[in-house]
């Protein structure tokens, strides 16, 4: 993290207006996330320094989406049937008159959303809906969960496999209605479903629905006849209006929409060589802007809200003034990229990172940086392979150099960035969120001592307050938690003593003893998307009845004395790794029942 904070150095060190500005400074950080047209990778590039910060291996070539907050980027891998969540490492905290910036390393969060052929992927209010075309089902998860590494999903069924879309809209879901005769055609409208799955109101007709976007608090879907414009109605229910294309427009339709940021408008394609600016609140809602040649890609500028950019097949980037409704500047940037050929051939994509408009040049293997103000090329960044999709996150915020440094800060002395939320590291590891290279071998001595099973306390009711506590904060009732732990904690081994390389199990008071040696560790990915590490020991001698393998899991990933642990044992190493429901749990024998309860409540 220190490297990054110093690396993102174009840091305008302006004196802050604030009276308490001991060491406050303005920090600018922008990161580019670039996927490859053929390879299953995402590169993370510091847009300020031009250096590659990380390359993440994923399952397939990806389309990339950044979240509204910019804290997450998602790699939608249609052919690999998965969406992978990436923490961008840049976060802002709005304080009204300024925003604090936190800069950390980018990382795979561990959250993956699986399903058959994910394509349309839409955020609304921090909730993402991934539509799986070949299932006709959307899986919805919250950004917060995805960042924490465990994306629990909620399913919405559209009724039939089709090229569809779902938007999670508060307590409702907006769901595309498949074509009734032939679901391989585009959908015919949007229905509103309540949380119970029942339809609310009538179908909003939208023939050939394809393309959706949000701009501020307004959402739009593109149809053959116009747009469906969604705003929040009474009680938070979506209110959907059809906005027909103006008579003054030539024959055509939009099939791709993007939403303005900073200004509320939509930008859509309209025929191959035009775009249309759409302001649903105006009487003349549509302004068509002709392009010199066919359009390859377009993007809005989130920093300079006045501008959007369009790339055309002649290799030129155009600045579009959304207020004036015209192309104001053009710049030749790449060799021509003809729109003849397959729609998904590698062609340039645009993202805006601070002062730069960045354009991928897949066939040349590089990114072009264009100064957003002068509109002149300002540099290039080489990227291996065929750089294709690109998104950018970042901005400028205040990094406080004051007393928010906490004991959890891992000794980054002199780090300009003391507001770091790195203090979450231990907690994140506890939750199952870490990098492979953080995991280290551990010796049996980490678990030395005399240990008692907590199963008897569950049985006799001692742990009832813990279950009630979990119910208050979780999604199950106390009884459901008790049932879950009844399976989890169940064991006949009431006590375990570990001394040197010797482990003694006590079943009904009878000791079984054997010696064990380290057999490495395995990293497991759980269904929720978080992960855990099993530290494995193999029997080297002792009682016949003692298990051949024991596997410790204690939420720690590197050498450190355990405060409690889950233990799995048996003779089949691989089969044990599959065991996820029964995890006998041990606390030090010296702890009283009350102390164990207190310890559990603290987690």
């Amino acid at each position, binding site marked *: 993290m220190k490297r990054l904070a110093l690396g993102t150095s174009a840091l305008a060190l*302006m004196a802050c*207006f604030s009276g308490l500005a001991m060491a406050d400074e303005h920090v600018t950080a922008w990161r580019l996330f670039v996927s490859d047209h053929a390879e299953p990778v995402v590169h993370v590039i510091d847009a300020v320094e031009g250096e590659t910060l990380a390359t993440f291996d994923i399952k397939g070539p990806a389309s990339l989406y950044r979240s509204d907050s910019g804290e997450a980027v998602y790699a939608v891998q249609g052919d690999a049937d998965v969406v992978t969540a990436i923490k961008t490492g840049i976060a802002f905290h*709005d*304080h*009204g*008159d*300024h925003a604090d910036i936190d800069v950390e390393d980018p990382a795979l969060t561990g959250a993956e959303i699986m399903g058959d052929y994910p394509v349309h992927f839409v955020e609304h209010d921090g909730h993402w809906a991934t539509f799986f075309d070949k299932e006709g089902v959307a899986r919805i998860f919250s950004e917060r969960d995805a960042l924490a590494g465990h994306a629990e999903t909620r399913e919405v069924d559209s009724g039939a496999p089709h090229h569809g879309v779902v938007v999670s809209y*508060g307590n409702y879901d907006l769901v595309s209605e498949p074509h009734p005769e032939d679901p391989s055609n585009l959908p015919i409208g949007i229905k509103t479903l309540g949380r119970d799955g029942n339809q609310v109101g009538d179908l909003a007709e939208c023939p050939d629905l394809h393309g959706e976007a949000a*701009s*501020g*608090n*307004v959402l739009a879907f593109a149809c053959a006849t116009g747009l469906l414009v969604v705003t*929040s109605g*009474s*009680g*938070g229910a979506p209110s959907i209006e059809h906005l027909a294309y103006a008579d003054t427009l030539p024959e055509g339709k939009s099939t791709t929409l993007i939403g*303005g940021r*900073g*200004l*509320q*408008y939509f930008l859509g394609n309209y025929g191959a060589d035009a775009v249309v*600016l759409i*302001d649903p*609140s*105006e009487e003349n809602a549509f302004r068509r802007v002709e392009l010199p040649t066919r359009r390859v890609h377009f993007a809005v500028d989130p920093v*300079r*809200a*006045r501008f959007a950019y369009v790339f055309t097949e002649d290799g030129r980037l155009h600045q579009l003034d*959304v*207020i004036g409704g015209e192309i104001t500047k053009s710049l030749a940037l790449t060799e021509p990229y003809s729109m003849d050929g397959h729609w998904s051939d590698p062609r340039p994509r645009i993202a805006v990172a601070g002062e730069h408009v960045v354009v991928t040049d897949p066939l040349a293997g590089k990114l072009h940086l264009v100064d957003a103000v002068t509109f002149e090329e300002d540099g290039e960044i080489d990227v291996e392979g065929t750089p294709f999709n690109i998104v950018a996150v970042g901005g400028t915020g205040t990094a406080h150099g004051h007393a928010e440094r906490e004991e959890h800060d891992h000794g980054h002395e002199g780090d300009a960035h003391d507001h770091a939320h790195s203090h979450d590291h231990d907690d994140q590891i506890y939750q199952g969120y870490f990098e492979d290279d953080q995991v280290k071998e551990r010796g049996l001595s980490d678990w030395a001592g005399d240990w008692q099973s907590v199963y008897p306390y569950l049985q006799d009711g001692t742990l009832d307050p813990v279950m009630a506590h979990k119910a208050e904060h979780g999604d199950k009732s106390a009884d459901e938690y008790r049932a879950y732990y009844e399976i989890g904690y169940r064991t006949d081994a009431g006590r375990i003593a570990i001394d040197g390389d010797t482990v003694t199990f006590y079943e009904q008071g009878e000791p079984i003893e054997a010696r064990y040696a380290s057999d490495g560790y395995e990293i497991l990915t759980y269904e929720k998307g978080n992960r855990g590490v099993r530290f494995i020991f193999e029997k080297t001698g002792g009682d016949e009845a003692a298990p051949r393998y024991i596997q410790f899991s204690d939420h720690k990933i590197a050498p450190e004395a355990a405060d409690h642990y889950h233990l799995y044992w048996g003779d089949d190493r691989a089969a044990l790794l599959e065991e996820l429901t029964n995890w006998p749990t041990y606390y030090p024998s010296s702890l009283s029942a009350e102390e164990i309860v207190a310890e559990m409540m603290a987690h």
Partner: protein
Amino acid sequence: MNRFSRLTFACSVISFGVLSGAVAQENRLQVVATFSIIGDLARQVGGERIELKTLVGPNGDAHVYEPKPADAIALARADVVLVNGLLFEGFLSRLVEASGTAAPIVELTQGIDILEDPAGGHYHFVNGEAVFHAAPNDPHAWQSVVNAKLYVENIAEAFCAADAGGCADYQANAAVYFDELTALDEEVRQAIAAIPEDKRVVVVAHHAFRYFEDAYGITFLSPQGVSTESEASAADVAGLVREVRERRASAVFAENISDARLVEQIAAEAGLTLGGTLFSDALSGPEGPASTYVDLIRANVATITSAVTAD
């Protein structure tokens, strides 16, 4: 430098959009007001000499307003832009930047005795969600009529600077309106004085009435410390309900810029009925009871009076 110091600099720039004496339709002073209350004040001062565009209309919440390209076009064409300031218009700086306007951005709260917000801000309730509006200085200064008179003086000064030829008209209009506001202020004081002292505690969701409280002696309770990310939690509402009981609040009010779900819940739990709708950050539509600033103040006083004196 924060954006408002930049805007203050902008205020010292005088527009060169000088007009000739005769005010043809197309020659009128182009004025943008950020929200409906300022729009009415501007109309009172500018009369027919100005062409007025109001960005956030009747019953709109400026805090969550999303500016449109048409707003940027209006700013780009403007001779004067009238704003409240004190972080009231969250959209302002990006809109000014997008528009590239050269017009002076006039902060109408200049010269007003500003109340600090001890909580560093207040909550707006948007479709049932609590949205924290961080504003260390309370921006809702117009809720005191005394302050509105200073808005009027600032508007007249800005119009005179932009249109010297019309200055005499602006000053004359302002003087007439100023007297109307003086009378209104006295009317409010008398109306509040008629309310028994033990009836002068009421409840609102969005704490937009500190200046009214400070000037006229009605205490407004509101939910504090609710979550910024979700609906007001049960505990926060419970705390407010306890305070409502302890302080024997007389009435709970909805407001015109947001839906009433939260206050309905508070009223139900506190055993009070909803006392009506107060106009906080916006006028009503033209057919409503608060289509001008003067009517807004009168409507609020009438609503409060009738709710707290009802049995």
